[in-house]
């Protein structure tokens, strides 16, 4: 009898912990998305040069990979997440300015934003409601991401527009897989740190948005 009570108590505690991680992750994600929208607007207002994107992405990646994991369990981690997402948003400014200057630029940006939102909410809702375990995707997604990075390096030298389009399409598919993988990890208790969970989901949203911008930008300007 006591053992039954203990098992029920452990399960309840585990569910409460998962719900807490989920709630904190989505709250921090919403705030960081808002913050990066603000820094993107600031960057557009300041008319930053295109190299801002490259410098911001490199800076954000270095901070996210080497500094953030050391502070992930402290309150400083939240500040570092804002720094990373703010930098990435600031880097997006010049890219958005370039698209906004196109004849149907505002349409491309709005569709990319709406498309990213629909993909993220749809896949997150599926992983949350179904509670399926997508941990089997881990190796596949990482290898796929590595292949995409190698293709991206090759295309810097080859400069083939069709390859760039294909890379963006594959990035959207891989990032969709990462949304399922990351969300199911939180739901099934594999990820208990909301700071790391937030940065992972933010990166998927960022990559889907940039890839959609590129695809819609190329396909929307074929006249």
């Amino acid at each position, binding site marked *: 009898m006591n053992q039954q009570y203990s098992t029920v108590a452990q399960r309840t505690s585990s569910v409460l912990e998962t719900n807490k991680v989920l709630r904190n992750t989505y709250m921090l994600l919403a705030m960081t998305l808002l913050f990066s929208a603000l820094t993107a607007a600031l960057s557009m207002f300041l008319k930053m040069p295109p190299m801002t994107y490259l410098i911001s992405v490199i800076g954000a990646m270095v901070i996210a990979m080497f500094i953030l994991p050391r502070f992930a369990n402290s309150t400083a981690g939240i500040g570092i997440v804002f720094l990373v997402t703010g930098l990435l948003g600031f880097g997006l400014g010049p890219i958005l300015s370039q698209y906004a200057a196109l004849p149907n630029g505002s349409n491309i940006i709005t569709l990319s934003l709406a498309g990213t939102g629909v*993909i993220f909410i749809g896949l997150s809702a599926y992983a949350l409601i179904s509670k399926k375990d*997508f941990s*089997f995707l881990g190796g596949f997604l*990482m290898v796929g*991401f*590595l292949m995409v*990075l190698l293709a991206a390096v090759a295309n810097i030298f080859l400069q083939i527009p069709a390859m760039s389009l294909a890379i963006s*399409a594959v990035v959207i598919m891989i990032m*969709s897989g990462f949304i399922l993988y990351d969300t199911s990890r939180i739901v099934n208790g594999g990820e208990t740190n909301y700071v790391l969970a937030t940065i992972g989901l933010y990166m998927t949203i960022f990559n889907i948005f940039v890839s959609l911008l590129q695809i819609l930008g190329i396909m929307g300007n074929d006249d």
Partner: protein
Amino acid sequence: MEWMQIVSALALVVFIVVLLPGVIDRVKNSPKGTSSDWMNFVFIILIVTGFVMMLIKLV
């Protein structure tokens, strides 16, 4: 070749090198999915692909 392209390529290569041990570890330690798990994933990706194609039609 512009300096921005060289810096981009170098940054990506460094990123790949840093990422590689994690990828190998993930491949070795990931649980295997059943065929129904994979079919489910493929179906979801097909829906996402269809949605992106719809967005392309809208632009």
